[in-house]
């Protein structure tokens, strides 16, 4: 099936349906999710559209739903997770839902305010209760003080003395004010009282310690009970004002004990009543909220759908007679029948006799780009689209990226132990996808949506790790090394035990017979290199040449894909004017470089006369054959001169051929008379576009500049992009070195300890090794290699053929809309 290699063929369709069945039809299309509505009023603002009132109503309903949800969550009521989606949501439903929402909101608001008032009353009563309880002690204390300070006359009755005090001894007349104040404000309160009365007062306070069952408030505020004893009446007014300033609540407290007791019983009774009422209110609130919570998800989904439908209706045209709605949609050609079926279903639901009409129209506008993806391919399509959505029907790089991206990642990651860990992580993510999606964490979401990418990256990393012969920086020796140390010693070779004693290290010589077996290690890099001191000398040369070869092959692949684009769009001129010079240029220079690398590997050379490929290449470009002139093969000089000349010829071909051709065509068309434009037809609200546009003015300067830029970009880009692929070498070297450091300086240290404590040390060191491996080598290096592989695709590969300036197909889809929340 062609659809993933190119974006799908789209068509513009006009839909006509009756106003009554519009709602249902759009509902059906939304469930289908294959149709993008075009905006037929592109200039109008949101508030000028026809259905703006209905959209506002939906938004109001959403607000009420959010308020309900908040209330439900604060009361710790569970919202049931699953709900059935009803397919029908008629305009009548809007009114129903609206009225029920309003009613619910009113009810809830009333309940809440009642509850708050009741709670306030209850708090007050509790405070009075505590106040009465504690002021008993104060009065006893103060009275005892008075009896001591007074001249002794103990025969008077307890209470009458106090009354006589109030009436007879004017100078010692004590009034008091009792109240409750917040605990943290009390010190400031006391200070100001001191300043006011210059110490002429008695202040007693105690903290309220609540009983357990009385704690009916959500937040408990610490409060203190205080009693101020002062002389005189006027001062009471001052204290009252002070209390108001400190938001302390004052309560009338009777003088004598009996009245206080009576008040206490009163208060307790009222508290009992209030408690009952509060409980009932709470229960009623919980019942209402639970009933609402059961439908909450369904209502949210319905309101969202309705809002989307009204928004879509705003994009359409209403006929003058108010009976017909006209919409223009983009739709994939292969799905036309299912769209038609959905429309018929929608109109049947309203019982209307007239089926909606679909009228396919031809247009010059560019359709949106639609790539049908499944759960496996969508990750790769997303990373391609992140750089730029493809032009309509140009080649989609995604199917090739599915292999080349994990492969290039693996070339840079190259360790089969780490690759195995990555594969296991990916398998775990795939198996437990549901569980991870529920966590709703952004980072985890990103990991989960890329789980298949990670799986492929891990599998290819295992393969490249086996070829690099690198598993947590150690090598496997499965087939026997091709290098033999024994043959370096007498009698075959130059070494003796003397030579061994005299130097710290020695180098094997492949020219001594038997040292190198003549057959390379059959799968990957020889394990002898892992223990060699000059390992990097060999590996660097190998990896750099490998990067160049892979880079040239990848870029040639990109150029071939551009041929595919030219053929599809029947652009045969560009095949000759652009594709052939590009291909020849790249092959003659960089294809030849690849040939040199492969030739030098395959041919036996004496090591002291081996020419450096880099120098050969540079001298070739400068036509410099004067140096000692070690050539790789006999006819190298003429072949190289020929290739450079051919490449040199390609540059002006690329630069001038196309603009000159267009200039000639432009001149020829100016001589011919211009074709008549078809008259534009206006039928009511829809316009049929003219099938032939007049030829635009071509500016020759623009064309030359554009082609010049393209030529320079391509030719210089060939060199810089080939060098850019050297990052494959650089990152794999960094990865190998990091894992070797972790082995040598972390794990090996613990493995060499010989004492008994070594096992404990090993356990601790292995934990460190594991943590460092995961964070540095898997996460950091993984992200780094991911990024660089992505850059190689986005820039070096795609600039050979990809335009990437299209816009994405965004259908009206209820599934996507509801799943996003």
């Amino acid at each position, binding site marked *: *099936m062609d659809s*993933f*290699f190119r974006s799908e063929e789209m068509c513009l369709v006009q839909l006509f349906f009756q106003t009554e069945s519009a709602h249902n039809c759009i509902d059906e299309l939304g469930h289908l999710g294959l149709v993008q509505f075009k905006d037929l009023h592109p200039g109008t603002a949101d508030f000028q559209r026809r259905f703006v009132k209905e959209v506002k109503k939906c938004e109001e309903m959403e607000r009420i739903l959010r308020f309900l949800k908040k209330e439900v969550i604060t009361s710790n009521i569970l919202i049931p997770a699953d709900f059935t989606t009803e397919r029908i949501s008629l305009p009548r439903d809007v009114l129903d839902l609206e009225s029920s929402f309003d009613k619910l909101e009113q009810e809830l608001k009333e309940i809440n305010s009642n509850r708050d008032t009741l709670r306030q009353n209850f708090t007050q009563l509790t405070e009075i209760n505590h106040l009465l309880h504690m002021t008993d002690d104060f009065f006893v204390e103060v009275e005892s003080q008075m009896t001591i300070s007074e001249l002794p006359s103990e025969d008077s009755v307890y209470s009458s003395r106090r009354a006589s005090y109030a009436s007879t001894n004017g100078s010692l007349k004590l009034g008091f004010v009792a109240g409750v104040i917040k605990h943290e404000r009390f010190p400031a309160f006391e200070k100001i009282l001191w300043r006011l009365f210059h110490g002429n007062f008695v202040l007693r306070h105690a903290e309220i310690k609540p009983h357990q069952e009385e704690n009916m408030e959500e937040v408990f505020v610490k409060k203190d009970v205080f009693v101020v004893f002062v002389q005189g009446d006027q001062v009471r007014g001052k204290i009252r004002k002070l209390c108001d300033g400190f938001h302390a609540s004052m309560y009338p407290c009777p003088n004598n004990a009996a009245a206080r007791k009576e008040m206490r019983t009163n208060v307790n009774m009222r508290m009992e009543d209030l408690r009952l009422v509060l409980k009932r209110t709470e229960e009623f609130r919980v019942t209402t909220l639970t009933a609402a919570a059961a439908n909450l998800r369904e209502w949210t989904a319905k309101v969202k759908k309705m809002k989307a439908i009204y928004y879509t209706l705003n994009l359409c045209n209403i006929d003058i007679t108010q009976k017909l709605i006209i919409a223009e949609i983009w739709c994939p050609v292969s799905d036309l029948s299912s769209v038609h079926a959905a429309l018929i279903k929608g109109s049947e639901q309203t019982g209307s006799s007239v089926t909606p009409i679909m009228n396919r129209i031809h247009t010059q506008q560019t359709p949106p780009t639609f790539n049908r993806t499944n759960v496996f*391919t969508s990750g790769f399509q997303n990373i391609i689209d992140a750089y730029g959505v493809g032009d309509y029907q140009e080649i989609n790089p995604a*199917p*090739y990226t*599915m*292999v*080349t991206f994990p*492969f290039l990642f693996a070339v840079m990651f190259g360790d089969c132990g780490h690759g195995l860990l990555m594969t296991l992580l990916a398998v775990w993510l795939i198996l437990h996808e549901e569980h991870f999606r529920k966590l709703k964490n952004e980072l985890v979401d990103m990991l989960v949506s890329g789980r298949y990418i990670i799986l492929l990256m891990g599998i290819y990393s295992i*393969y*490249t790790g086996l*070829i690099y012969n690198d598993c947590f920086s150690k090598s496997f020796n499965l087939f*026997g*090394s091709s*290098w*033999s*140390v*024994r043959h370096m*010693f007498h009698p075959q070779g130059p070494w003796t035990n003397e030579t*061994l004693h005299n*130097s*710290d*290290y*020695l*180098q*094997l*010589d*492949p020219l001594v017979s038997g040292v*190198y*077996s*003549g*057959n*390379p*290690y*059959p*799968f*990957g*890099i020889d394990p*002898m*290199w892992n*223990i*060699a*001191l*000059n*390992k990097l*000398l*060999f590996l660097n040369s*190998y990896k750099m*040449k*490998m990067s160049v*070869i*892979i880079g040239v*092959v990848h870029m040639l692949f990109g150029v071939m894909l551009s041929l595919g684009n030219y053929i599809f769009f029947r652009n045969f001129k560009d095949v000759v004017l652009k594709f052939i010079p590009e291909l020849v240029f790249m092959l003659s220079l960089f294809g030849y470089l690849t040939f040199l690398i*492969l030739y030098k*590997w*395959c*041919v036996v*050379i004496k090591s002291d006369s*081996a020419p450096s490929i880099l120098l050969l290449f540079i001298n070739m470009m400068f036509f410099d054959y004067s140096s000692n002139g070690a050539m790789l093969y006999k006819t190298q000089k003429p072949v190289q001169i020929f290739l450079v000349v051919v490449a040199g010829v390609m540059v002006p071909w690329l630069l001038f051929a196309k603009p000159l051709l267009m200039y000639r065509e432009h001149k020829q068309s100016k001589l011919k008379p211009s074709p008549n434009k078809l008259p534009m037809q206006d039928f009511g609200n829809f316009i049929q576009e003219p099938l032939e546009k007049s030829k635009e003015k071509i500016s020759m300067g623009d064309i030359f500049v554009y082609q010049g830029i393209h030529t320079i970009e391509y030719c210089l880009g060939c060199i810089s992009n080939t060098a850019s692929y050297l990052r494959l070498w650089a990152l794999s070297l960094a990865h190998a070195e990091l894992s070797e450091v972790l082995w040598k300086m972390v794990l090996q240290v613990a493995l060499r300890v010989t004492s008994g404590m070594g096992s404990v040390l090993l356990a601790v060191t292995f934990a460190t090794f594991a943590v460092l491996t995961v964070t540095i080598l898997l996460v950091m290096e993984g992200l780094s290699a991911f990024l660089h592989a992505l850059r190689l695709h986005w820039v070096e590969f795609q600039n050979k053929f990809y335009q990437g300036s299209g816009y994405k197909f965004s259908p009206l889809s209820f599934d996507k809309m509801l799943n996003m929340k």
Partner: protein
Amino acid sequence: MAFVIPMVVFTLFWGFVGGVVPWFIPKGPNRGVIVTMLVLTAVCCYLFWLIAILSQLNPLFGPALSNNTIWYLQFHWP
């Protein structure tokens, strides 16, 4: 001789994966994608293996080993 065997084996293996298996993929919406993936995998992996083995075919210099390593290898490796 011992070079020809791995050459033939791997060429045949990746040739099988990239050239023969695609014919047996059942027709369905994903056939094109699966075939592309098989061919590209075969090409990439074969090329990578080929580069590794060709680079070691005619070495210009040998590994440099420390004394202890030489001592050990002299007795334990063939």
